[in-house]
């Protein structure tokens, strides 16, 4: 699957390739991200204004995941995940995400894909990582 991605192209369960690394573009973490995120979640804002809430980079990685050289995965449901927070992030840090499919398993309604994902900072240090379980649609019969 090496076609040029377009807005309408989609990656179905059958198209998922195991063990192919996908690297996203980067995003620089700003005070605006933190203000929007803490306002949305209602959590107590960090005492140190340069602190980045732990769940913000994880949330940003899900959007970054759409910006890879592969059409968007047709996710029917995000089933669950395990995640480790390895090092703190600060305002001004730039993160990107690196992911690959570890396994895919066919189900009646679609297929289950286990994705490994790392959030990496500008010094190439992995700051967060984990495994996500996604239910992905099958390609509809033509």
């Amino acid at each position: 699957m090496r076609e040029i991605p377009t807005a309408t192209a989609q990656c179905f369960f059958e198209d998922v390739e195991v063990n192919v690394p996908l690297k996203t573009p980067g995003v620089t973490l700003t005070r605006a991200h933190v203000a929007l995120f803490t306002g949305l979640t209602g959590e107590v804002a960090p005492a140190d204004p340069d602190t980045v809430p732990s769940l913000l980079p994880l949330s940003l990685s899900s959007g970054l995941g759409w910006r890879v050289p592969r059409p968007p995965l047709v996710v029917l449901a995000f089933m669950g995940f395990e995640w480790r927070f390895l090092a703190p992030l600060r305002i001004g840090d730039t993160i990107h995400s690196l992911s690959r499919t570890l396994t895919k398993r066919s189900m009646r309604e679609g297929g289950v894909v286990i994705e490994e994902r790392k959030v990496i900072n500008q010094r190439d240090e992995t700051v967060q990582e984990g495994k996500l379980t996604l239910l992905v649609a099958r390609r509809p019969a033509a």
Partner: protein
Amino acid sequence: MAGPPVLSYGPVEGHPGVFFEDLAVGQEFTSPGRTVTETDIVIFAGLSGDYNVLHTDAEHMKSSIFGERIAHGLLGLSIEHGLASRGEPAAAHGVLSGLKWKFKGPIKIGDTIHVRSRIAAKKDGPDPRCGLVTVERELVNQLGEVVQEGETEHAVERRR
């Protein structure tokens, strides 16, 4: 709900926050509720960049198993985290070190959710200044259905 007020990024103003020694296995907490709105979903889509049709295309979702747009799973988790910070003791110095999470059911626009949590375990960690606290969590909707559940692990500073 008895017990020390507010495991987040820092203590509430005027409250020193709790230390590892202040937390006991079996302590339970219930957060306030929060009604999830369309606005919450739109802001999360804009902030995260996750514009999956599940969350943004009302017409497409009419024919889905959900029948309507649903909140991003990670939005639910993020709101869970915010609610928990209002219903659990804040660690004087604590950080989230890991989590295991299951998305069991959809959160729809207008649903009101709250958090039930329980301190499940305390143990030593790699850093002698901190202990690790495991908290079991359930995110519950207005019908009493558990829509998300899992456990979070927090590194919480010890008293010196």
